[in-house]
């Protein structure tokens, strides 16, 4: 009945799900876990405020990943940030620009921005949400060059990048630095994280982008789910240590079990 080689995967998926559900229920009963400070997320409001004061736009992008493959969680995390930033822009009256690569992300982003502006009572601006989303190109470097042009022409005061980025990450971050924008960037693509750390004011590393929605919403249930992640990490840590010890003494039990 079960696919060969995926038994262990399914087992750990269920364990992590159970841990997340447990912490969500605990949080619902009022026992809130404490989240550590993430300076990059705390700085978002300051960045939008700076853009408002300088009468310059805020540029936010969700990366070049889509919603139909393994990069989807990163794009979803980026979209959550778009909603939060759009709400701040609506509140403070800052101009928002959201460059998009995937055509099917356009209606999603438009809807998010429209809802955010409507919720802040800015119905006139909400009607122009489609103009805030700029479709650039489906091609990776076509998108990059158009994005770089946008940064150079509009000189944003705040540049936020949350999502899946590849080779274009450093190019975007460097040009953002050159136009003197306050930059907050995050990705789960490990090879691009050093580029963001080197070129941006604040960077979100790996899992921090997934926790952004929970962190910013302050919703107890969402915060509880973030605490559940720690159980998954603890399991991984134990497996690594036990696996090293067993393999070192020539007992491949754990390796075989994980392959089952």
């Amino acid at each position, binding site marked *: 009945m079960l696919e060969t080689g995926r038994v262990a995967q399914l087992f750990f998926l269920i364990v992590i799900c159970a841990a997340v559900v447990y912490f969500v229920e605990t949080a619902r009963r009022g026992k809130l876990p404490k989240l550590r400070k993430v300076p990059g997320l705390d700085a978002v409001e300051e960045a939008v405020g700076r853009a408002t004061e300088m009468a310059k736009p805020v540029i936010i992008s969700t990366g070049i990943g889509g919603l*139909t493959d393994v990069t989807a969680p990163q794009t979803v995390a980026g979209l959550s940030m778009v909603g939060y930033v759009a709400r701040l822009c609506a509140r403070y009256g800052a101009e928002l620009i959201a460059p998009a690569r995937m055509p099917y992300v356009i209606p999603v982003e438009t809807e998010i921005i429209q809802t955010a502006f409507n919720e802040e009572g800015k119905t006139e601006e909400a009607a122009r949400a489609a103009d805030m989303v700029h479709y650039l190109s489906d*091609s990776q470097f076509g998108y990059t060059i158009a994005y770089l042009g946008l940064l150079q022409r509009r000189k944003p005061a705040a540049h936020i990048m949350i999502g899946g980025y590849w080779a274009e990450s450093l190019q975007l971050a460097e040009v953002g630095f050159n136009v003197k924008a306050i930059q907050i960037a995050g990705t789960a693509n490990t090879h691009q994280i050093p580029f963001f750390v080197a070129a941006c004011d604040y960077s979100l590393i790996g899992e921090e982008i997934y926790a952004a929605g929970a962190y910013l919403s302050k919703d107890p249930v969402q915060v509880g789910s973030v605490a559940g992640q720690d159980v998954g990490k603890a399991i991984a840590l134990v497996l690594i240590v036990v696996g090293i010890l067993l393999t070192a003494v020539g007992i491949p039990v754990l390796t075989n079990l994980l392959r089952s």
Partner: protein
Amino acid sequence: MSFYKRKELPIVITTLTALLMIFATYFKVPEAKSASTTVQTWMLVMVNFAVVVGFLMVIRMHKKRIDKRQPGDRSWLFSVWLIIVLIAYVLLGIYGVESTRTSAPTNDWSFNWVYTNAVVALDSAMYSLLAFFIASASFRAFKARTKEAAVLLVSGAITMLYNAPAGSSIFGPLAPSFNDFGEWILNVPNMAGFRGILIGAAVGAISLGIRVLTGRERGYLGAGE
């Protein structure tokens, strides 16, 4: 509010689709696998329809730029050029498919010629520009202002010299030991850090998935705080 505009409907669709995909991944049930393949085909069709949305958006955005042109500013000419090229390339693609009677326009020499000599060449040029961006970013990042930055500077310098032919020339007879050290930095501390981030990110993605599945994470739907 009409039923299709309510937030519950997208959440129900997301949850059911995700559960089907998870089930088809872990269980040997032919019906589930077949349903999963069908859903993925629907998705491909929907995604391709969205290209038309993108095409129209680009035309609309650049038409607006042309309409709002200011005296003395000639940047609107780029928008005119973009629209001409966009339409011409679409027409060339249609011609390519029709003339070769295949599904790929690249089988037609004229479409393929433009693709190889313009699109691929420009892509490569953009990618190679990365080297200069790395140089400028490294210049700023590799300043030993703090202890951590000093570690970054030293390990970065060793890795660069280990990868560059100049490294072997500089270290002469010590080059093999130096190269071993460079390889060790790359494969041990660097890889350990990468894997730590990777494990954290994977668990984070699962947690986000659970929040999306249960309808708690609604940011992607534009829902409020």
